């Protein structure tokens, strides 16, 4: 039997505000435990939450970026459950009417574009952090409430994702949008973005969806893909063996790379939502909405097509360069300052990104700034140095921080287009390879490339390959 996987994602993203959603405590990451708390976020009796305007603004920005309809009137509810990291015994979230609904984003996998619907985006507060220290003597769970009350948006997709690859493309696109908007720090390792998934498989030809399972709190693209992959295979196996899939929440075991059933009483969740009596209706006025949409930055898809056209670079290059905003900013800086923007795009994608990945740094931490790289690339286009020499200069720039021109001067890397100098090298190469000369003259013209390579090698990459080719042909053909 063939099955079609059906996957939906709920993405929780921490909003990069200074203060929490309902109180004025700092949202700083990595502060000493319980140093950013107050009576409101500790859930003391008699306190009142007050909504952070910037958090609402950020939620609206994401809603606009994902083509959602903004609900001008939305509300907050209480979601009731007991857990040590939730001091109030309830989470304030948006339930009946969220801030935004009915949007979509476009994703691309294997060159194919696809639209994935967004069901809703809502605002809510994060919970604290429970730590379970290892070791038998530690029979306690420690709780840090610094994260408690940090603003989150939850972005709920339609169940329109049909493979682990699409799920990663979707999650990546959401992360990219959050970063472009500057509303989320986007560090998965710090838990800024977390994924919940629901997975089911539909037998081919069946008109309705299969029974789904849920897996919560995945925090990397890798575990997102692996968990979906595992769960699809598990469900198909169950169905093929005549069993049935149980609707449940399953845990992802990061070490064994499997999902397993939780089988606890908590499984039957009954959150008893009701309107939060301490908060009134959240209203978004026309004026505010206009203000926010008019200041929305250029988004990745728009920037990709603009960069492709404006600089005349291949689509692939444009999409890689716009994968993050700092990278796109860096490329545009180089491209504006140098003569050859196609060359600039290739250099940023290969040479610059190689160093960034190797050193595990960000584009902003990369020491060769846009202007310095543009100067180097112009030396190639002005015929001052060869492509090979440019790579050497680039390494030296990284090490010394000196300008390209200065390094070329110091190392004497000027390209040799002086005919006499190249002729001498050609003579030497021909004298050293009598066998190859015979083969060439016997008709094997394709070994001309070998001779050019030898000339380039002997000249230390400085010979102009075009001049070398012309002289070689001149000498060999006569």
């Amino acid at each position, binding site marked *: 039997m063939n099955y079609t996987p059906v996957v939906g994602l709920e993405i929780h993203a921490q909003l990069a*505000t*200074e*203060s929490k959603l309902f109180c*004025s*405590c*700092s949202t700083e990451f990595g502060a*000493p*435990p*319980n*140093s*950013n*708390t*107050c*009576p409101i976020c*500790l859930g003391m009796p008699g306190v009142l939450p*007050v*909504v*952070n*305007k*910037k*958090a*609402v603004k950020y939620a609206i920005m994401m809603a606009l970026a994902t083509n959602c309809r903004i609900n001008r*009137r*939305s*509300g907050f509810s209480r979601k*009731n459950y*007991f*857990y*040590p990291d939730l001091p109030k015994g309830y989470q304030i979230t948006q339930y*009946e*009417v969220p801030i935004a609904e009915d949007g979509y984003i476009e994703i691309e996998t294997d060159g194919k574009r696809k639209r994935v619907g967004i069901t809703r985006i809502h605002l809510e507060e994060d919970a604290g952090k*429970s*730590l*379970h220290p290892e070791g038998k003597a*530690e*029979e*306690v*769970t*420690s*709780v*840090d*409430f610094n994260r408690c009350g940090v603003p989150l948006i939850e972005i709920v997709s339609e169940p329109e994702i049909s493979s682990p690859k699409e799920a990663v493309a979707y999650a990546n696109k959401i992360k990219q949008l959050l970063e472009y908007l500057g509303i989320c720090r986007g560090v998965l390792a710090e838990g800024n973005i977390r994924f919940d998934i629901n997975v089911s498989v539909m037998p081919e030809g069946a008109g309705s969806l299969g029974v789904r399972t849920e897996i919560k709190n995945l925090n990397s693209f890798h575990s997102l893909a692996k968990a979906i992959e595992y769960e699809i295979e598990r469900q198909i196996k169950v169905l093929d063996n005549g069993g049935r899939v149980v609707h449940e929440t399953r*845990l992802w075991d990061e070490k064994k790379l499997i999902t397993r059933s939780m089988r606890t*009483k908590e499984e039957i969740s*009954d959150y*008893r939502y009701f*309107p939060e*009596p301490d*908060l*009134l*209706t*959240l*209203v978004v006025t026309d004026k505010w909405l206009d203000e926010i949409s008019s200041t929305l930055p250029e988004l990745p898809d728009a920037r990709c097509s603009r960069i492709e056209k404006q600089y005349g670079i291949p689509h692939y290059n444009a999409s890689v360069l716009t994968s993050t905003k700092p990278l796109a900013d860096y490329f545009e800086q180089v491209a504006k300052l140098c003569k050859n923007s196609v060359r600039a795009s290739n250099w940023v994608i290969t040479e610059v990104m190689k160093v960034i990945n190797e050193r595990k740094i960000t584009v902003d931490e990369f020491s060769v700034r846009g202007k310095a790289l543009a100067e180097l690339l112009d030396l190639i286009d002005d015929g001052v140095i060869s492509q090979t020499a440019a790579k050497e200069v680039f390494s030296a720039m990284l090490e010394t921080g000196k300008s390209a021109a200065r390094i070329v001067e110091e190392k004497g890397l000027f390209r040799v287009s002086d005919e006499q100098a190249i002729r001498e090298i050609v003579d030497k190469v021909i004298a050293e390879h009598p066998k190859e000369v015979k083969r060439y003259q016997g008709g094997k013209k394709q070994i001309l490339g070998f001779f050019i390579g030898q000339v380039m090698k002997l000249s230390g990459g400085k010979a102009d390959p075009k001049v070398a080719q012309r002289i070689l042909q001149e000498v060999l053909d006569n």
Partner: protein
Amino acid sequence: MQIENALVKKVAALARLEFSDDSLASFVTEFAKIISYIEKINELPLEGLSPLSHPVEGVQMLREDKVKGSLSISDALSNAPSKRDGFFTVPRVLE
């Protein structure tokens, strides 16, 4: 709405409350009374009216995103029955 032992037990479990069988029986009676009182609302002709998003009219005020300081760690922990190294501690919760 039918109020039974099982429902009261479920609500009690969700609220982490425990009752003796005697008080359970009295809760069943009291719950039934309260629910039937509230259910009177269902008798109102409400067709064509949109649901009230909040029982209180008015618009939520918003505050600027400013950090205004927090409690000291020792103040934050001062009411905690159990604490260690700056953390609140609770009986171990297994994930």
